[in-house]
């Protein structure tokens, strides 16, 4: 089934008229977090305004195809390649990352990095947000992840338990349309309702996964006195597979197809393009545009694109948010903008864990706990790579179909970080730019051409195995997002500054991951080609060994939730302790990241928060008087 994008929906809202409306809810950011909340509130009859920093027009198929063309024609196929760079709403790009010299922050790109460790972590500021771009793994968090302080004396406990979140996980799996099988996903305490099945059946493991599984399944591991056996297991995926007829008590599931203005043939099952990051050409992969479309179809959601939130204005007496001031730019390349305001009964910041605290701090709202922007978390990725003895057919399938999840939990977490392991179907692409780098090396340095080149490519590329260890990073107050008026973007918005170091707890997990990878390669009879370059921007040493650490794109922790206002920024509903009509939603609310890719949990939390918003709206139903006289709602300004 294709999803019809309401024609003209990105242009139908007049910003000046909207400035005179008191919406039920104003949402900043049309990523998955903002879109889920918009869809749920509008379904309940509420009027919603969404402000989105990225350019409009992107959800029609034409807009989507322009992403594809940009991707095919660009010589650099990095993960932001399909998306237009905008100076008005810039975004970090992995290729910008530089090694940071001590005491000299790297200010060359939008994300200012003061180190000590540089990160290539990124996000996308377009309609639909970073899910346009994500890979689409959708694991649930482990029950233990919510109680790390109690169980292991590390990190912070959540004010919610796995059981509290479980029904919302199921809702999130429906919204995203997850393909997985309960049998594969019930481990380390993850439980499901008795008759639960995922909306769609699990995607098959790749030939490469199976080759690894042949030798790795059953491999014994002993850690902190506990015995585990490894097993290659499929990941749950936010991409369309075969609908499970047993879903929803036997009612089945209708997959969401492509978003388009007209009937199209794409958007059905995943076809194995191996291009999920940065863009799925057929929209088999979920992106938030699918949910945003549902919201817009309600007729109760207004969307203003090219609208960059500039400042949150707060009533100094009550602490309540009065309005959000935003800058509407005319064209992505122009400096001119208009200042406009947006008003609602409730406000939701859904701009992600870097941009949410950036906006709050730029508005002078540091939070009574002083924690706004602190405890930035991400996953630390350690890559290890080798060549398998047989042709494994690398470079086929989705970016990743299977991996090892058995060391995501265990008693060892009192000493060292846990991790999940991905088997990458795209070989050494991530670590060494394969297969292009192999081609260039064989031709330019190997003297290969003709038959010897074809043989060389099979030998070098089709045997590749890359294991990506996604290691948890605990909250640390010194890892943080800040702002500084001397660093602004073209529209005058203060840019985010990231201060980041990897805690020893994580580095112990990293060191163990490297050891384990050597054992795995030995068991596979694979040649280990892992080699960490001391000049790499993310090079970090621990106990005399050096490692290349990469960013995880799993931004979290910067407005942590808790049950005590003095040690957290939001409550379990993601409501700001300081500003009762303001919700800060997304990964920023997480007290721990565990070893799950974070987006399913973001979606579950947002489903839950939307309920809390509806309750609050009902409670605060007293009519609000708008001042109609006085200052005009907007004024024209020239940019700088």
């Amino acid at each position, binding site marked *: 089934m294709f999803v019809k994008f309401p024609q003209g929906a990105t242009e139908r809202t007049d910003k000046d008229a909207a400035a005179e409306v008191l919406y039920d809810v104003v949402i900043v950011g049309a990523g998955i977090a903002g879109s889920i909340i918009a869809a749920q509130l509008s379904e309940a009859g509420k009027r919603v305004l969404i402000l989105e920093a990225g350019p409009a027009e992107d959800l029609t198929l034409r807009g989507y195809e322009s992403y*594809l*063309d940009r*991707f*095919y*024609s*660009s*010589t650099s*196929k990095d993960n932001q390649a399909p998306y237009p760079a905008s100076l008005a709403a810039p975004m970090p790009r992995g290729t910008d990352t530089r090694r940071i010299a001590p005491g000299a922050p790297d200010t060359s790109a939008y994300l200012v990095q003061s180190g000590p460790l540089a990160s290539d972590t990124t996000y996308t500021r377009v309609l639909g947000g970073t899910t346009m771009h994500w890979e689409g793994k959708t694991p649930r968090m482990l029950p233990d992840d919510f109680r790390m302080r109690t169980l292991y004396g590390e990190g912070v406990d959540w004010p919610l338990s796995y059981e509290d979140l479980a029904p919302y996980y199921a809702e999130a799996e429906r919204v995203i349309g997850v393909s997985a099988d309960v049998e594969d996903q019930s481990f380390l305490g993850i439980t499901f309702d008795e008759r639960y099945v995922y909306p769609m059946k699990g*995607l*098959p*493991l*790749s*030939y490469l996964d*199976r080759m690894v599984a042949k030798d790795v399944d059953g491999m014994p591991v002993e850690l902190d006195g506990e015995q585990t056996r490894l097993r290659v297991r499929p990941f749950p995926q936010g991409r369309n*597979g075969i609908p499970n007829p047993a879903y929803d008590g036997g009612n089945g599931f209708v997959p969401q197809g492509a978003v388009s203005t007209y009937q199209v043939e794409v958007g059905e*099952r*995943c*076809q*194995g*393009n*191996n*291009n999920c990051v940065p*863009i799925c*050409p*057929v929209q088999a992969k979920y992106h938030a545009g699918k949910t945003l479309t549902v919201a817009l179809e309600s007729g109760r959601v207004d969307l203003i694109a090219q609208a960059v939130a500039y400042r949150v204005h707060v009533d100094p007496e009550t602490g309540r948010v009065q309005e959000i001031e935003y800058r509407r730019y005319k064209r992505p390349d122009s400096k001119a903008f208009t200042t406009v305001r947006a008003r609602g009964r409730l406000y939701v910041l859904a701009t992600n864990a870097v941009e949410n605290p950036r906006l709050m701090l730029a508005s002078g709202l540091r939070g009574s706990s002083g924690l706004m922007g602190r405890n930035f978390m991400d996953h630390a990725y350690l890559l290890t790579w080798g*060549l398998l*003895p047989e*042709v*494994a*057919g*690398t*470079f*086929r*399938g*989705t970016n990743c*179909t299977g991996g090892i999840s058995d060391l995501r939990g265990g008693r060892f977490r009192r000493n060292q970080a846990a991790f999940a392991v991905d088997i990458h*179907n*795209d070989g050494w692409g991530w670590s060494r730019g394969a*297969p*292009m780098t192999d*081609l*260039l090396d064989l*031709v*330019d340095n190997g*003297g290969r*051409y*003709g*038959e010897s*080149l*074809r*043989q*060389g*490519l*099979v*030998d*070098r*590329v*089709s*045997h590749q195995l890359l294991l990506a260890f996604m290691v948890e990073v605990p909250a640390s107050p010194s890892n943080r997002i800040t702002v500084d008026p001397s660093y602004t973007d073209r529209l005058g918005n203060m840019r985010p500054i990231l201060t980041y170091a990897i805690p020893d707890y994580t580095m112990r997990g990293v060191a163990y991951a490297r050891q384990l990878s050597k054992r795995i390669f030995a068991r596979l009879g694979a040649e280990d080609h892992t080699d960490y370059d001391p000049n790499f921007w993310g090079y970090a040493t621990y106990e005399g060994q050096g490692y290349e650490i990469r960013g995880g794109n799993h931004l979290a922790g910067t407005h942590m939730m808790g049950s005590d206002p003095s040690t957290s920024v939001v409550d379990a509903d993601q409501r700001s302790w300081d500003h009762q009509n303001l919700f800060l939603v997304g990964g920023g609310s997480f007290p721990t990241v565990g070893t799950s890719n974070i987006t399913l949990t973001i979606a579950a939390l947002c489903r839950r928060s939307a309920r809390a918003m509806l309750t609050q709206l009902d409670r605060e139903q007293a009519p609000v008087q708008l001042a109609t006289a006085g200052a005009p709602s907007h004024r024209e300004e020239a940019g700088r």
Partner: protein
Amino acid sequence: MTAPSLDDFVALSVDLTAFGETDLLGTGLGSPYLAKLRGACGDAVVTALFAAHQAARAESAGDPDGFDRALRYRIFSDDCLGPVARNVIKLWYAGTWYGLPPEWTDSYGAQSAAQTSTVTAASYQEGLLWRAIGANPPGAKAPGFGSWAEPPRIDDRYLKGARR
């Protein structure tokens, strides 16, 4: 001087890539690639490259080892023709024209089209690299749901491997 011909270009490309004439012409990119080559190196260099290829053929008279040596002597080790021939291989395999090294442009002149660039959006999708490894170009020519669970379609003669 007559303009370099598509036939000569394809004959050279078959030997450089080990893909057949029908495979190469089937991409629809023979003419655009020849145009790219001429734009980047100039006709004098292109003509010399084709001539060297034909001379290598004539000289080795069907003996594969002799032909390999002749190509190495006449083309791959030549300061002017070597980098250009390697670029032709990369063009067919990757769909990208890579900028020639500075020492080449210093000696033989920088033409207007010498920078790294793609030829058309289709050239990436038609890259021979993907066919050589039995995969589809990421983002295009999708092989179908579940195809990734099957063994790769790589010609048997490459499966043994020269690696071990």
